[in-house]
């Protein structure tokens, strides 16, 4: 086993464990922190497959943005020391068996599939290349989704503000 393989397995273990912790921790704030670890681990994997830009985005937007958003909302809606109730045993067991079956099937299918390893040469995902592709409008160009997602972000922004902003109550 090579070094990078070893790092991958360790990272995977950390990611999986923190993911499990994130969905079971009884203190919500801790759950958010575990989520941060899981997302950070993912970013590390992106690094390992040479997707540096994606890794950076993962850290900035996901870990930096979403997790902070989540932490804010937790602070706004719960007490720091509040412990979540444990879900009912029936719920846990039913859900556990369902997700376990789901995991078993998908893993079975994914491992049974014989993938033909890629033939093309790796297009080094440098920032420059990404930038060019983002603004290209031919085949393989992503300018259209790039523009459309700006509408989505704007709409989300407007939506979030207009809901969260408390108007003076109707007289």
């Amino acid at each position, binding site marked *: *086993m*090579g070094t*990078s393989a070893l*790092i*991958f*397995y360790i990272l*995977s273990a950390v*990611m*999986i464990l923190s*993911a*499990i912790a*994130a*969905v079971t921790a009884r203190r*919500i704030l801790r*759950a958010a922190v575990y*989520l941060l670890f*899981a*997302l950070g681990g993912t970013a590390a*994997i*992106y690094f390992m*497959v040479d*997707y540096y830009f*994606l890794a950076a*985005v993962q850290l900035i*937007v*996901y870990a930096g*943005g*979403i997790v902070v*958003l*989540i932490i804010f*909302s*937790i602070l706004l*809606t719960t007490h720091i020391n509040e412990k*979540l*109730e444990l*879900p009912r045993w029936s*719920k846990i067991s039913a*859900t556990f068996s369902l*997700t376990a079956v789901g*995991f078993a099937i*998908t*893993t079975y299918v*994914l491992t049974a599939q014989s*993938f033909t*390893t*890629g033939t*093309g040469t*790796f*297009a080094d995902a440098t920032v420059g290349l*990404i930038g060019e592709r983002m603004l290209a409008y031919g085949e393989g160009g*992503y300018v259209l*989704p790039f523009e459309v*997602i700006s509408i*989505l972000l704007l709409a*989300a*922004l407007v*939506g*979030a*503000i207009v809901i969260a902003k*408390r108007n003076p109550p109707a007289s």
Partner: protein
Amino acid sequence: MIDQVPLSHVLSVSSLMFFIGAYGFLTRKNLVTMLIGVELMLNAVNINFVAFDRYLYPSGINGHFFALFIIAIAAAEAAVAIAIFINLYRNIRSIDVEEVDKMKY
């Protein structure tokens, strides 16, 4: 890394993360923690895209772009979701999912 770790291992990790996320979504009582479950699921999807991209179709990096966009959309979705949570919290002083059941049958 790609010459040392088989693709199926990466995919297994992502599947596991996906279903852990689903488990969280299905069992957690607090709405925010349910959202955490969704984020885990989306993250697993991203790993899938990246892994397929890097292992099988390295020349196109389409999966890479898809992952980028998923991150952005996840952020937007989370923002709106949290705005609604806060609004609910102001109305009923709770964000327990089991209390969000005024409408049924």
